[in-house]
């Protein structure tokens, strides 16, 4: 594993809310293709840790190196963030946009930015042609992504008309449309009705086997066992244990982890 390309390198990450220190120093290296499952008791800071990775929460100290730059200090956080997909517990599809526009919004804005930079401000004609081109390309890509999850007929629907499972799968491909290098999932199935959990986990599995690097906060132990190649147990603001899923679940060392597993398994 050591010869693999490093995607994320987190060093001594700390995060406090006021005087309440939630993350008390986490180090983690994530290599290309890694699937890291993160488990822990409710309120232990799993979401906070995940949200620090793309600086949705600004870490109090520490560093997060991604694409050779420290996200905590980088000047172009937005650009780097666009390469880190994030999937939320409550989907967070844009309610004012159709499914297709949800997927196209960010890629289109980035494509336009690129075009403006390349062609320059004054070549209006050339620019509008290029933008039209980009729009077509982005929309085709979005439709392909929708086909991948079998929801192409929902392209022009609004999120309010979709089921939870459909929303979450669309939220996942919305992130994919930016061609991220790594994906962060924060309890992607916790807000779903039981019958819809399967379809979403299926899609995440498909992504994992296609080589996507990902960190997944989850309460689905079966999923962690089956899909992850590394499982972390976060407790009291630090990683108390990390191991391969086999070792982690069959031979836990930490007392708190043993207790936790005896409750959830």
């Amino acid at each position: 594993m050591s010869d693999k390309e490093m995607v994320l390198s987190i060093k001594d990450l700390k995060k406090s809310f006021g005087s309440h220190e939630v993350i008390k120093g986490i180090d983690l290296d994530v290599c290309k293709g890694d699937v890291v499952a993160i488990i822990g008791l409710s309120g232990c800071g799993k979401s906070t840790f995940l949200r620090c990775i793309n600086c949705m929460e600004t870490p109090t100290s520490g560093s997060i190196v991604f694409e050779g730059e420290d996200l905590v200090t980088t000047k172009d956080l937005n650009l780097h963030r666009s390469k880190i997909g994030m999937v939320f517990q409550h989907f967070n599809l844009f309610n004012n946009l159709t499914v297709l526009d949800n997927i196209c919004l960010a890629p289109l804005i980035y494509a336009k930015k690129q075009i403006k930079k390349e062609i320059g401000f004054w070549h209006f004609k050339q620019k509008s042609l290029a933008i039209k081109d980009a729009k077509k390309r982005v929309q085709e890509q979005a439709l392909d992504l929708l086909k991948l999850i079998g929801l192409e007929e929902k392209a022009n629907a609004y999120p309010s008309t979709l089921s939870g499972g459909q929303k979450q799968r669309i939220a996942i491909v919305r992130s994919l449309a930016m061609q991220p290098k790594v994906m962060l999932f924060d309890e992607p199935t916790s807000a779903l009705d039981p019958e819809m959990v399967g379809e979403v986990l299926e899609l995440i599995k498909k992504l994992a086997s296609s080589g996507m690097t990902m960190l997944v906060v989850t309460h689905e132990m079966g999923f962690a066992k089956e899909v992850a190649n590394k499982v972390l147990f976060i407790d009291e603001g630090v990683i108390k244990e990390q191991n391969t899923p086999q070792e982690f679940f069959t031979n836990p060392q930490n007392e708190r982890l043993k207790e936790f597993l005896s409750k959830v398994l």
Partner: protein
Amino acid sequence: MDKLKLLWDCRMQFIEGLGITLLISVGAVIIGFFIGVLVATIRICPKNNIFIKILDKICGVYITVIRGTPVLVQLLIMANVVFASLEFLDTNIIVPILSFGINSGAYMAEIIRGGIESIDKGQMEAGRSLGLSWVTTMIKVVIPQAIKVVVPTIFNEIIIMIKETSIVSYIVVLISGEQVRDLLAVADKQGMSTGFYMEFIFTAALQYLAVVMLLTLVQKLVEKRFKKNER
């Protein structure tokens, strides 16, 4: 029938009065909306530098003071303190426009801020996580959703303000010693001089009512337009 003829004979005065009322209202709405958007923007944007923080505090004080004092008092202060020395201006119109505009701005700011804050935080987070800037996410995602929430309340505020402008006629002396001749003032004066006071006041009431009903119609149209997307 005499009464109707009498009222009809005063139509030019009524039109002028209504004109003044509308002029004050429209001017105040424009100023109020502009202030409202500006103040709301300052209040909701990320407070990442000291300059914004100071502006935010100032806006907070502005809202507290304006909402905490009667608009009549604000009018009197504006007329007798702020504009007391500017005799060359037609202060009879400018004072009410500014007073009601500044007053309305505080309410509009709170309405707009409330509307934007009512939109689920997850919408902004999703936008930011995709690499969009705060401004882009605001414009493309949050504001379009907030507009729908805010439109009825904004219209409500405008309607309240239009009716409230009628108090200017009772501040007889602003500075120049002349009354502001808005709709109610005209009705009041003509009613007094002809001896048919109630008839003239009712006529004014009908005109206020007509304006408000017209505005309600516009509100329905605007709401329909913004409802079109989203099922």
